[in-house]
């Protein structure tokens, strides 16, 4: 490990507590499993299924998160090789291959592998997929059947096209579909676990999750300030508590409120995450977990990352207080996350309403000088739209992009010195376009 030098990103104090909360989820699951309580491996599902599992008393771990954990603990490479040896193509998702390697090893040993970081992921009674965003997650969990005898369930999340989503009745039909889906899921869970849903608890949890997201959204809105009070690195650390909602949601609520207070204070006092803030950037999509220190080097040059990763962002808030059915509340909330940018996208004829379009809106609202795009060799979902994003940002907003290929888990593909070399030249590009934007009367 390279020794970390002086830190150029001014990190938020209240972030550390949020980070600690996530790591505990592994230990909790292992304990639950030992005690004979139900545990699940769950794909990130954007709050659709999380409150349901929690209300049914299932302890959950998220193998995607575990992919990042294994990558930073340095054990991922072995799991990736194991997955290849099991016959899985090497172009598949890095998280998936890490998880497959892990599961194969667990099956071979009959227990959690001793090298597994954070105590490992306990053997699940349920594998829960989501059809949201990528093919990898539902196919990956299905293929885990070679190593685990847990049944697999897929929760549907509709993916309407931008134009189709605005048709008469489409919105309500999609909500109906999601609610119907969740009901089928609950019926399945009740059969599997042999117990009934605690609806009052579900109601409470659904509201708590939605509230966490609302605060989290508010925090991110404050990052439009100059200088930006919170860096993407803090975002990636803090988002996990919203994305992998673990532990007591009341605790999460408190932690996010603390975070909000700290960010507000920074804005009031004009304290930036990077000083001086010479360039404001957006980042798409998944970061190089194994090389986050590169953002410090960029901060040293005055680069502040002010917004990032659409898929990790909370939905634009909507008022759900009148919706009494918790399933419907969850469905509307999740659907909002997915389609919240669609109406504006349609007005601009941007048919990639999720993933691509939000960056256009953000580049304007957060006044970004440039974008750093991180195509992944093993993830279609986080990469598909990047060429489009680059094109739209430049042609519509005169915001240029720096492209650096890499991977989330497999660090061998990321060229750190090469990226820094390009970064230097990229500053000139950002200067050039700043001049052009001002020439055209754009406000930044």
């Amino acid at each position: 490990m390279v020794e970390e030098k002086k830190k150029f990103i001014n990190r938020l104090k209240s972030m550390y507590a949020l980070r600690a909360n996530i790591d505990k989820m592994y230990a909790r699951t292992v304990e639950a499993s030992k005690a004979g309580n139900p545990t699940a491996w769950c794909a990130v599902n954007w709050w659709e299924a999380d409150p349901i599992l929690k209300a049914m008393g299932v302890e959950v771990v998220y193998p995607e998160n575990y992919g990042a954990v294994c990558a930073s603990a340095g054990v991922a490479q072995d799991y990736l090789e194991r997955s290849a040896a099991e016959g899985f193509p090497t172009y598949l998702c890095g998280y998936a291959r890490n998880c497959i390697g892990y599961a194969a090893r667990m099956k071979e040993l009959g227990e959690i592998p001793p090298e597994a970081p954070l105590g490992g992921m306990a053997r699940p009674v349920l594998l829960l997929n989501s059809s949201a965003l990528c093919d990898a997650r539902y196919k990956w969990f299905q293929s885990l059947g070679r190593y685990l005898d847990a049944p697999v369930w897929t929760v549907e999340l509709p993916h309407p096209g931008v134009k189709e989503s605005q048709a008469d009745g489409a919105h309500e039909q999609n909500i109906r579909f999601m609610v119907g889906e969740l009901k089928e899921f609950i019926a399945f869970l009740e059969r599997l676990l042999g117990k009934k849903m605690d609806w009052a608890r579900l109601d409470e949890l659904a509201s708590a999750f939605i509230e966490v997201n609302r605060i989290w959204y508010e925090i991110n809105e404050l990052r439009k300030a100059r200088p930006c009070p919170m860096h993407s690195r803090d975002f990636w650390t803090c988002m996990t508590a919203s994305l992998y909602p673990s532990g007591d949601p009341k605790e999460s609520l408190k932690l996010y409120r603390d975070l909000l207070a700290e960010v507000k204070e920074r804005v009031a006092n004009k304290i930036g995450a990077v000083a001086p803030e010479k360039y404001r950037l957006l980042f798409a999509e998944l970061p190089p977990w194994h090389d986050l220190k590169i953002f410090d080097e960029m901060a040293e040059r005055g680069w502040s990352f002010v917004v990032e990763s659409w898929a990790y962002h909370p939905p634009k808030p909507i008022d759900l207080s009148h919706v009494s059915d918790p399933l419907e509340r969850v469905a509307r909330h999740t659907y909002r996350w997915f389609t919240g940018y669609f109406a504006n996208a349609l007005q601009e004829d941007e048919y990639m309403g999720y993933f691509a379009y939000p960056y256009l809106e953000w580049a304007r609202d957060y006044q970004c000088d440039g974008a750093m795009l991180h195509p992944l060799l093993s993830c279609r979902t986080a990469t598909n739209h990047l060429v489009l994003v680059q094109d739209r940002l430049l042609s519509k907003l005169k915001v240029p992009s720096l492209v650096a290929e890499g991977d989330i888990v497999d660090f061998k593909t990321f060229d750190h010195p090469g990226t820094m070399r390009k970064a230097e030249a990229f500053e000139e590009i950002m200067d050039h376009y700043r001049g052009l934007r001002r020439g055209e009367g754009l406000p930044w």
Partner: protein
Amino acid sequence: MTKVVIVDGEGLLRARVVSNTGAEHRRLANRVMEEALQQAGLPFDQVSYVVATGYGRINVPFADRQITELTCHAKGVASLFPAVRTALDIGGQDAKGLKIKNGVLEDFVMNDKCAAGTGRFIEVLAGTLGLKVDELAAVAAKSTQKLRITTTCTVFAQIEIVSRLSEGVPLEDVVAGVYDAIARRTVNMLKQLGVEPDVVFTGGVARNAGMVKAVRDNLCYDVFVPEDPLITGAMGAALLGKELVLKARAKGQPILRKERRLEEATFFSS
């Protein structure tokens, strides 16, 4: 390199010729064949069956049949090491990994089109260091801390090792680093198959003691190397030819032979 092996009905080696003539003479397989016939003391028409293998297999005008180098290698390796499950073959043009079960090819991976994972990598870097390939092993043996070469490309690696040397990294550590770099690449490729013992290492590069050590270190398995690692492919081809002939005879079927012309190979188009 062009290799010719002749075996008799018992599978015993009757001739073995390796022509170290380089790319320009690949097409002169007929000369190598003539040499082998001389060694075995046989006229050509006494050879019951000729199997051609390798990249140039389609271009050998005097072969009765073409069989892929994968099947031949598996056969050749298994004839020497019956318990083999995994084989690594590194030549000058490519590297391949074989999974073998009960002496038969089960699965394989190949790397080509890039010199970085092949014998050429060693040759080129040896040249950069001003050393001969067979001097490398002795130098590497003195290394206490092998250099980690970060670039993949052979050309980039040349620059890299030169600048490391100029920064004062000892020569032996650089050489050990060269071995390690290619061993890591090829072993990683092999791991895609799932490595199981016994593991056999063949091809020209397996004659290089330093490389054998580096492969062993990276694999964490013991590695067997045949006495004559260059000819396993040709050996396998000969043995497969023998089997075909014996099988046909046992069934009383005629042996299907092509019309043979002991002449130069035709144009290599791919």
